[in-house]
């Protein structure tokens, strides 16, 4: 699924790296615990989270993820955006809650992917 379609599904605002919106992700992971993302994620290209700090971007970068969707109306800080630009990670933010965001995107065809 294109990152652009994910933004539309989640009615998300895109904050940076619009030039990568046509990039494809094949699965996603939803978590507020970066420890779990680091330990269990395998090849998910999208991180859906309600946690807002620079470690979210660094965690995504370590896992080679292409996009981050912040949920529950959380807004990315300038620091997060600067880091995301540097790492070429698309940042989006939606008013949806975690469960709704994951459900909507899953229902439209993006799956959870393989666990390690």
């Amino acid at each position, binding site marked *: 699924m294109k990152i652009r379609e994910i933004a539309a599904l989640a009615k998300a605002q895109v904050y940076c790296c619009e030039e990568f919106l046509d990039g494809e992700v094949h699965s996603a992971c939803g978590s507020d*615990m970066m420890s779990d993302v680091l*330990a269990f994620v395998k090849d998910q290209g999208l991180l859906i989270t309600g946690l807002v*700090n*620079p470690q979210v971007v660094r965690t995504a970068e370590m*896992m080679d993820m292409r996009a981050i969707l912040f949920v529950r109306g959380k807004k990315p800080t300038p620091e997060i955006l600067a880091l995301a630009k540097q790492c070429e990670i698309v940042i989006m933010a939606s008013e949806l809650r975690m469960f709704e965001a994951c459900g909507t995107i899953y229902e439209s065809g993006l799956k959870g992917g393989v666990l390690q």
Partner: protein
Amino acid sequence: MSAPLVYRYDIDGENFTSAGEASVKVKKSLRQLGLSQDIIRRVSIAMYEGEINMVIHANGGCATVSVYPEKIEIVLDDKGPGIPNIDLAMQEGFSTAPERIRSLGFGAGMGLPNMKANTDEMKIETTVGVGTKITMTVNVNR
């Protein structure tokens, strides 16, 4: 064995906001060296977990990454409180992280086992009250 390429970073323990900066830099450097994505990701995850540990458990320290033709070695050295029981610390789910750290997205007790899972070798040398030195190796099969 030819001389390794060495990257060295001081890890600031006062400032959680910067935790993980060194790992991001190392990842960029390894990409420039043209190593495979799988190797780079394993090194990145192991180092990032170790770097975060030094910040949240040991008040910072020093990270050294040495790139040899056949392996990448990561050494994380700190002067923190040490680990009283390594077997316990290595168990998935064991964590002494306070609630404040959990609210930042860490402290699930997954880091050390994840470091082991992503590396070919991992050695922990630790003395309570003195510090901890973790040496990890990822083999590069070209």
